């Protein structure tokens, strides 16, 4: 996985490699986390089932590749509308009824969803580890003293492009503005004639489409199995809390921080312990700056 170890120090500039790996990984983490933070920011719901949609995206890519030999990047054209529909369906069936309920009800609703989806995958496709290996996953690019895998670079580029599209949508379209207004003040938005139910449905669908597509994008880089979402979702909680829950720009910066901690931690201490670093970071942030590194103070005590 880590080119710096296989190629030896002579061909690799360590600093350049670590920096490049951090940026590449950070871009992908950002796409995973941005859906989570969007859903939280607008609906005020922490989606504990977020990782399961990532896992479903990975399986979609796996089956498309195995059965139809479809490249994961082509699958994206299917996955974005498909996961948008899945998100809409889950919102209507599960989330709509608890949108005004207490935190505990919302937590256990999404936790229940997570358990159910994980095990649907387990029963349907067994617990075996599966791989998606298109041609580009074995192409190595060298540039400026650093080396990376072609899949990683393309995944990063697409993740960046999708995240940018989402930003542009939120910033410049009417619907985006309406979504931001709902996030700021639900009641005022309702009084202004905004159909908040429609906005929540759209928000959830967009969030799920983001994370499902992220699953498709990372499928050539990671193993596919029913609980594959767990490690990524835990990491995106870290990202999102670091950046401030609901803050999209914060999520981008949080992704870079988490990716940096992971890359540098595994370089010095080995990959086995890399998760320890960001969990310790996570607990530290929750304890000392629970509203995020740049968030408003006091948000955490309101439980929002």
């Amino acid at each position: 996985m880590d080119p710096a170890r296989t190629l030896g120090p002579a061909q690799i500039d360590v600093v350049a490699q670590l920096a490049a790996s951090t940026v590449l990984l950070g871009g992908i983490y950002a796409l995973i986390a941005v859906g989570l933070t969007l859903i939280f920011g607008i609906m005020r719901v922490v989606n504990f089932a977020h990782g399961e949609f990532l896992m479903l995206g990975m399986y979609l890519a796996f089956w498309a590749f195995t059965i139809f030999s479809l490249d994961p990047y082509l699958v994206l054209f299917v996955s974005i509308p498909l996961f948008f529909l899945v998100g809409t369906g889950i919102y209507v069936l599960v989330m709509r009824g608890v949108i005004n309920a207490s935190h505990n009800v919302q937590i256990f609703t999404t936790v229940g969803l997570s358990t159910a989806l994980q095990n649907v995958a387990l029963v349907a496709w067994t617990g075996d580890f599966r791989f998606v290996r298109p041609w580009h996953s074995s192409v190595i690019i060298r540039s400026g003293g650093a080396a990376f895998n072609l899949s990683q670079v393309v995944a990063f580029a697409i993740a960046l492009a999708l995240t940018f599209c989402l930003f542009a949508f939120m910033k410049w379209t009417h619907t985006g503005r309406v979504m931001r207004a709902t996030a700021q003040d639900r009641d005022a938005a309702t009084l202004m004639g905004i159909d908040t139910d429609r906005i929540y449905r759209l928000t959830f669908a967009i969030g799920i489409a983001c994370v499902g597509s992220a699953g498709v994008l990372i499928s050539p880089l990671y193993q596919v199995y029913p609980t594959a979402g767990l490690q990524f979702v835990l990491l995106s909680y870290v990202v999102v809390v670091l950046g401030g829950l609901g803050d999209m720009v914060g999520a981008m910066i949080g992704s870079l921080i988490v990716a940096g901690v992971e890359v540098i931690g595994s370089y010095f201490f080995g990959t086995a312990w890399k998760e320890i670093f960001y969990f310790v970071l996570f607990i530290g942030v929750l304890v000392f700056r629970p509203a995020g590194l740049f968030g408003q103070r006091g948000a955490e005590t309101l439980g929002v």
Partner: protein
Amino acid sequence: MPPALRRHAGALAVFGAAAVVPLVSRDNYFLDSVVLILLWGALSAAWNVAGGYAGQVSIGHASFFGIGAYAAALAGTRFNASPWLGMLVGVAISLAAGLVIGYLSNRLKGPYFALATIAFSQVLLIAASRWRGFTSGSEGIPVPFRPGFWTLGLGHVAWLYMALAVCLLYYAVGVYLERSRVGYQLAGVREDEDAAEALGIATRRLKVGAIALSAALTSMCGTLWAQYVGFVDAFYVFSVDLSVRFALNTIIGGTGTALGPFLGSILITSLETYLRAAFAGATSGYTGIYLIIYGVVLILVVRFAPEGLTGIAARLRGRWARA
């Protein structure tokens, strides 16, 4: 019926039925399922102390369960000590961990508190599965069966009465928290913390105390579970699924009630035992189907019957009394 008896009629029925089981049947399979119902019920009752009475909803209680399980298993295999000693060590560590977590996460509410507890259990999971030299890493620790009370190598009937004793203790803790001064203060903290504080209730101390007590009780049962089942696996004892299970039993039975966790356990554990038997021949695990059902049940219960079985029973009784 005297009122005290009427108040505990449900508990009397549940625990009484468990107590007479060995007199009726000596079938090990049946006894085993009763022991598991009692152990899971006690664990859920332990979760209920923090999650129910104090309103500190944790999805990381597997941390304390795992600490208890590992403490006893390591005491036996590494230090050749009694699992009872391991239990004490586990309880001490969990108590300390509960105090620290409760203290540090005191300001956190709702999803933030849940996230912090998940993170803690994940740190322990990684530590236990990677620290090969001490914990045997991801291979897990088989707990050898050594007959005798001191080594907790007991038969099914002895285990049943032991689990029952633990259940009665935890039920008593629940009743105390329902009806004592401390219990009412906790209810105040849970319903409106600012108002409770304004009335002069030491909210912080209460919450931290509830989390620590809950952690210690969970750890104690973790030890018993590991000794009963005979195997400690890091990926199971620290899993999020396990933490959810404690919460699920409690929510189904009735959050913040003394009997609720036990009722939930009867339902969920029996379902698991039944599905395990029904899918015994299937190659890909029964666990999958069982867990799908339990996820769906969780979604449905919090949505349509958030007060749980005890709440439904109370409502029916109220309607019946009025009629």
